[in-house]
């Protein structure tokens, strides 16, 4: 339960920090940290406009996407504190739950019969298919390293007390950070602020969503961010510390991670579309290297 509270807490300031950092780097003062949430609350109260060519798929797409992300949040542990659900291979269900949300979001984008949204839907399906192996390779490597196969047990046993753990944590953290960027469609894969329909991935899929639907999709995106960054935080926070100190470090790390994304988005340009496939596959390649590192560490050769 603790992890759920922490995830929800971090998702409050996570998007705000990104916006704030980007504003500061571009020489502006920037809105309040809570501004993204004010926008969401405004959306939740608004009326909706639907495309005349859309159907019930469009109407259930948003709610299902939101529900799956919320449910996936119940799987993510905070180190040795158990998540709500924890069992053998729970991360398989975690990944496939996110798959359900993605499936529904993609088909609701196709529902409005727009070429732009078709483009976004296609890219989302393609990129998420390419990034999925990286996640499973990573978890496979961690399972081999710790000897367990559920989120909770893996992170509870991924001690930071040996040098080997440090190596694993650094590579795993890097892979997870990249997975976060791809899954949430941020730079360098996609720039949500270009506002050019031809080049966006995630944002172009929700072009025709409005009001309540857009609101819950945005909430889901904020939670999704924190889901993955919690996983990477789990790799780093030493378990020997006091719980309250660790919670403090966790919240700071989330802010740091959000700041990092803001910094990245201020200084880096988006990949060329055609380069994205290579970029994403390289993340899987690094995860594969992690597998070999574990094999060597564990003396399997």
């Amino acid at each position, binding site marked *: 339960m603790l992890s759920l509270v922490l995830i929800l807490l971090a998702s409050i300031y996570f998007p705000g920090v990104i916006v704030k950092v980007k504003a500061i780097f571009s020489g502006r003062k920037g809105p309040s940290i809570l501004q993204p949430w004010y926008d969401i609350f405004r959306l939740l109260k608004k*009326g*909706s*406009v*639907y*495309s005349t*060519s*859309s*159907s*019930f*798929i469009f109407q*259930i797409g*948003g*709610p*299902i996407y939101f*529900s*799956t992300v*919320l*449910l996936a949040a119940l799987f993510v542990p905070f180190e040795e504190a158990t998540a709500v*659900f924890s*069992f*053998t291979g729970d991360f*398989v*269900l975690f990944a*496939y739950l996110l*798959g*359900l949300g*993605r*499936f529904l979001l*993609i*088909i609701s984008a*196709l*529902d*409005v*019969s*727009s*070429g*732009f949204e*078709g483009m976004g*839907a*296609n*890219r989302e*399906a*393609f990129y*998420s*298919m*390419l990034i999925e*192996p990286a996640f*499973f390779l990573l978890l496979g490597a961690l*399972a*081999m390293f710790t*000897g367990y*196969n559920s989120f909770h047990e893996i992170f509870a046993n991924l001690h930071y007390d040996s040098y080997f753990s440090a190596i694993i944590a650094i590579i795993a953290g890097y892979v997870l950070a990249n997975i976060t960027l791809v899954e949430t469609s941020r730079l360098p894969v996609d720039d949500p602020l270009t506002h050019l*329909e031809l080049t966006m991935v995630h944002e172009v899929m929700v072009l*025709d969503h409005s*009001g309540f*639907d857009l609101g*819950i999709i945005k909430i889901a995106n904020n939670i999704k961010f924190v889901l993955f960054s919690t996983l990477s935080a789990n790799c780093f926070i030493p378990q020997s510390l006091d719980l309250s100190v660790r919670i403090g470090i966790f919240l700071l790390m989330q802010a740091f991670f959000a700041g990092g994304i803001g910094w990245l988005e201020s200084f880096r340009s988006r990949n060329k579309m055609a380069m994205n*496939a290579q970029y994403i596959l390289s993340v899987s390649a690094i995860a594969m290297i992690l*597998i070999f590192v574990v094999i060597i560490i564990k003396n*399997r050769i």
Partner: protein
Amino acid sequence: MTLLLFKIALLASFVTFALPKKWKYWLGLVLHISLVATTSSWALHALREGTQTIALGVTTWSGPVQLVIDPLSAYFMLIINLICFCGIVYAGGYLKPYMAKKGSVFIALHLFSFLWLHAAMLLVTSMRDGIAFLIAWELMSLFSFILVIFEAQKESTLKTGINYLLQMHLGFALIMIGFLIANNQTGELGFAGVATYFTQYQNAPLFFLFFAGFGIKAGFIPFHSWLPRAHPAAPSHVSGVMSGVMIKMGIYGIFRIASMLQNDLMLIGIIVLAVGVVSGLLGVIMAIMQHDLKKLLAYHSIENIGIIGIGIGVGILGKAVGDEYLMILGLAGALLHNLNHALFKSLLFFTAGNIHHAVHTVNMDNLGGLVNKMRYTSIAFLIGALAISGIPPFNGFISEYLIYSGVLHHLPVASFWMSLVGIAAVLGLVLIGGLCIYCFTKAFGMSFLGTRRSTHADEIDEVPPVMLLPAVLIIGVILSIGLRSSFFGAIVVNILQDLTNISTVGIAAEIASSLSMVSTVNIILIILVGFVIGVRAWQQSKVKVEYGPTWGCGYTAGDFRHQYTPTSYADSLRQLVDPIIDYTRHYESFTEKEIFPPPKIFYTESKDLVEEKTVLSWVHLLVKYLPKAGVAQSGLINHYLIYPLVFLVIIGLLTFLKIM
């Protein structure tokens, strides 16, 4: 009593030819129901009490024929009965437009073959004796051939049918050779002989012989090339049954043979796993490239057979390294995926048949926007699409989860090679899952969503309820597997306990606990989705809801041609996998002098590279060189008299010199 009913049902099938046209279907339905009732009662009995043996009262030259129904057979029999029952109910609606067009004998032959395909599959699962098994196997191939060529007036269908018949007989020959080799060494013809052979000799050669023979039926790559041709050519109730259960008979055979393996396990496991991964990946990649919905579904059968192959491979490897957990979970995943695939694939073929019934085409380039006109069909297709992509809360996830958890359980203790093999299995499953989402968002999105991609303004109506009834039944089972997975998990584990003679008590308890967690999550997911949709409905009732045109980026005169097409949706993947598919774009570019260009045609097609390299290259060689033998056909009677003389002289010489 039940045996008598079973025999009467089979004999009464001949009456179909004598009945008036409108009664034929009803007789077929009654006969199917009696087959389902009798054999299901045997199967349920076998699942509860263990192996049942029923003497059929027929004798072949290898002895009296017996139905031996062990739990594995019983499991397959129940799947066959469920899908064939759904198939005959569905045929009631699907055949209606054909009733007027086709002749009386034609309809009778079709229904007769459908019943006998059902019966032959039941016999295949319950025959242990070699001769009887091969006869049942042959009956299954022959009757499915008659079913495939239902629209025999089309030349392409007839060609497909002959292709199918030839390939099935190649498989038949391989299986027969397998039985004969075992018979030659052990003196027993049938599965018992194979089991004895395996205890005495090296396993790998004979296993791969059977694997190829059964693999042709199952559709493993590279033995798959009949599958994407036959399924689209057959009517939808037939493709549903063929893809749902008939190809599973190949899997049944492989399961039966694999359960007897004694040595060479590592080699066999790795090769089966590799074939599974390749079939899964190539199957789904080829599926994404298709425009024809039924062809797309046919390639997905290859993909799902690949997943089953991964499960079997993992199971055999588990036995090889002595990890019972890995073995049972791999095989349990494969076995459960048989049921799962039978359910969602027949559901998808039936809904594709609904589209064909309503729109008269299954080419996705001409579909779109059906969701508002065929609401129930689209919901059924969507559930099938989610289930086949292995997405919770539906059944496809459960079987994939079993395979995943087996491998993940083994990884921490795996040796170097087993780690690599395990990672390959996981990678295969993950990529197949991701590609499946890619493919079915395309299939569903292009067929049902958006605006109709055609200028034909024909009226489209929902199909009659009888064509939706099977879908309701199948969706019920799909959901019950998703929401009560521990029950179904226990069934397959029990079957494996019987098959492998390994005590599975501890493993079963562990599987039950994690599966019940999965099902709990699935139930919570459904409740949560319901709750959020409820909140949304409440919010919508309070605010203003408007309808307007889709955002066209300022361009307002767009029509259906502005949508994404199946080709463009597949294109990003096509660029990545270009080397392993044979893809051509036909495009005439504009020349400089064309001031007023005429209409141009653009189309793409993808051929099956594996078929091209394995089957067609030989066929091309034959077609090229066989006509050269025509020299001998001179048309002169004196030449023709020389040929037998030469033949006799050669035979005489060979006998004289004792060469053969």
